[in-house]
């Protein structure tokens, strides 16, 4: 993570929205380029739809421009309502000179004539103007994004972080950015407590930094955050399948608390039994070899093999029965759907212990 050297302390940390976002290793080079030059880019494309990262990218460019000229004029425009004539107006040289930053939001919604006008401008950009186009990064308006890139625009990626590892990395970078230190398990704990929304995560990081001495460990996180934000039916099913009733019930309560619908939870319970039963029936073997025969990913087979210990075929029959009954119960068969799910968890645990009723 490069330190912010070229801009001075004026904007660093003054607001969490402003600062350098470097969520990923592979993304660093683009950002480094900006900071090495320290001059605001003339053309800039922010590609991606993670709102926080887009906002930060725009704020960074603005801050760079402000650093080189405090009187920079910043204008934000929506691409779908911007007319080419207005564009000419805002891009034409100012009588008084000075830097300007023009942010065109939602570049994917730009109409044809606006795209043409912007790309024409991109061929001969005004060095006094920083043009920032944000683009959702999808297939819509792709030609526009590619045209800007071809014209030499700096590309700042702001795609959604989908992998858990990326999000953990984001948390650690965030704490580092705020001048603290964190451990791997601290990031994991924060993710499970706060959830996957980057804004919430960023806010939680800055709150933690304000509350602590800057060293964030799993213990620190657990002191300030309790519970789980993201619990799916599969969390419940995984605990239920290994016979861990307390953990399954806890996960179930959390899931219902955060608004997970009972129906997918019931489906996940049935899926858990099905997976274990099918993997157990396939016999012992290398998960990677079984993967194609069972039509499941290898990691799922591996987990099911671990969960399958302690189950008998008879027990699985009873567990599947409980899962099917539960499925009927959550779809209107029962007055209390939460109770139906709890009863199913108990029934599955009983089936595992009793090794079948007959």
């Amino acid at each position, binding site marked *: 993570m490069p330190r912010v050297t070229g801009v001075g302390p004026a904007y660093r940390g003054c607001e969490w929205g402003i600062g350098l976002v470097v969520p990923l290793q592979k993304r660093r080079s683009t950002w480094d380029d900006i900071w090495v030059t320290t001059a605001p880019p003339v053309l800039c494309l922010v590609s991606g739809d993670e709102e926080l990262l887009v906002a930060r990218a725009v704020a960074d460019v603005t801050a760079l421009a402000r650093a080189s000229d405090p009187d920079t004029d910043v204008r934000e425009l929506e691409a779908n309502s911007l007319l080419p004539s207005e564009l000419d107006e805002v891009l034409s040289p100012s009588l008084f000179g000075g830097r300007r930053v023009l942010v065109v939001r939602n570049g994917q919604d730009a109409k044809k004539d606006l795209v043409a006008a912007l790309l024409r401008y991109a061929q001969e950009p005004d060095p006094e103007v920083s043009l920032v186009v944000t683009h959702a990064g999808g297939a819509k308006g792709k030609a526009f994004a590619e045209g800007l890139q071809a014209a030499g625009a700096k590309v700042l990626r702001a795609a959604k972080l989908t992998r858990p590892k990326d999000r953990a990395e984001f948390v650690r970078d965030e704490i580092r950015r705020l001048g603290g230190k964190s451990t791997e398990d601290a990031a994991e704990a924060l993710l499970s407590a706060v959830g996957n929304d980057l804004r919430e995560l960023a806010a939680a990081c800055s709150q933690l930094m304000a509350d602590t001495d800057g060293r964030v460990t799993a213990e620190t996180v657990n002191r300030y955050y309790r519970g789980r934000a993201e619990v799916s039916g599969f969390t419940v099913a995984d605990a239920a399948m290994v016979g861990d009733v307390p953990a399954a019930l806890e996960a179930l309560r959390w899931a219902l608390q955060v608004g997970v619908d009972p129906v997918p939870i019931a489906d996940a319970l*049935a899926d858990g039994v099905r997976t274990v*039963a*099918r993997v*157990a029936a396939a016999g012992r073997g290398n998960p990677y070899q079984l993967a194609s025969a069972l039509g499941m990913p290898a990691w799922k087979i591996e987990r099911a093999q671990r969960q399958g210990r302690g189950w008998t075929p008879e027990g699985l*029959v009873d567990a599947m*029965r409980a899962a099917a009954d539960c*499925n009927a119960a959550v*779809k209107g068969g029962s007055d209390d759907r939460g109770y139906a799910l709890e009863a199913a968890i108990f029934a599955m645990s009983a089936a595992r212990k009793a090794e079948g009723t*007959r």
Partner: protein
Amino acid sequence: MTGVFDSLVGQHDAIDTLRRAAAAAAAVVRGEPAQGMTHAWIFTGPPGSGRSVAARAFAAALQCADQGCGTCAACHTTLAGTHADVRFVVPEGLTIGVGEMRALVLRAASAPSQGRWQVLLIEDADRLTEAAGNALLKAIEEPPPRTVFLLCTPSTHPDDISVTVRSRCRVVTLRQPPAEAVASVLVNRDGIDPAEAAWAAAAAQGHVGRARRLARDPQARASRDKVLGVPRRLTGIGAAFDAASSLIEAAESEAAAAVVEVDARERADLQTALGAGGTGKGAASAARGMTGAIRELERRQKSRATRAQRDALDRALVDLAGFYRDVLVDKLAAPVAPVHADSVEVAAQAAARWTPESTLRRLEAVLACRAEIELNVKPRIAVEAMMLALWRG
């Protein structure tokens, strides 16, 4: 005497009632005092016994000057579903909604255009939603003088038809036609070989349409054979899951084959009607509401596909239940004919190995699975639980 009621198989009592009512109705039309006609009827009976056939025939008898001659224009148009005064409601989706019902009730209130009767015929009245049932109830409570409501449901159980509607209707009960009657219909009307007709009639368990399909459609036979092979294939847990997924997939592909062409055609028709692909001035604004209309169509099509899938699965489960019944019949040496005449040896082998209790448990598991699918349990989960129960016994 030939007539519209000939298409009913083995339902003499019901036909007598309906003939008398049709005669009374004709007297009412002539302006004479008559008894025996009612403004609302419910036709009940097991699937395939001909509920909708009976209702259609009765509608034709009401419209015909000769009380159902079967040859006049009124009979022909009614049976073909094109008579101006007979409104058919044949739900393709899972339910009949209240909006649809209100429109139908409004139309049913008008006077008959051809001077006889205004008929509203609802097939599968058990698919009426609660609100739709109430909308219908209001019309049945205070009927216009020449309007007749004909409802078809499997039974008069409150699950099928609300008690308030039922109490205002006259019930015609159809019985499950005996296999011999179904077989003779197949022989006489469809020209099917007697031995084959007897087999198909027994395998269809009194369902006339299914018997005809089994006798004529090799694909229906192949899928039935596959289903009857299931009990032998259940050698372990893995096999049970495989059997479940093959049963589900067969039902899915059967349903998809039934609806995919119609779906595509309907969609293309709707797009054409809404001006898709048009160019020039005004084309864009004409197409503006199109996505909404298409989405609505897709929603209806999805409902229809779900129903087709459940129907296909239900047929398979009925066949399977028939097999376990045969095993039980064999075990108890009951003096009744087997359902699946072609799989008696397999049934006898199974009967030698299983106790009557375990056979009964298996039969119950199949029936429970049918009930669960009706309760909207995910078909895959219900079938898997059933297969595991069948394996364990």
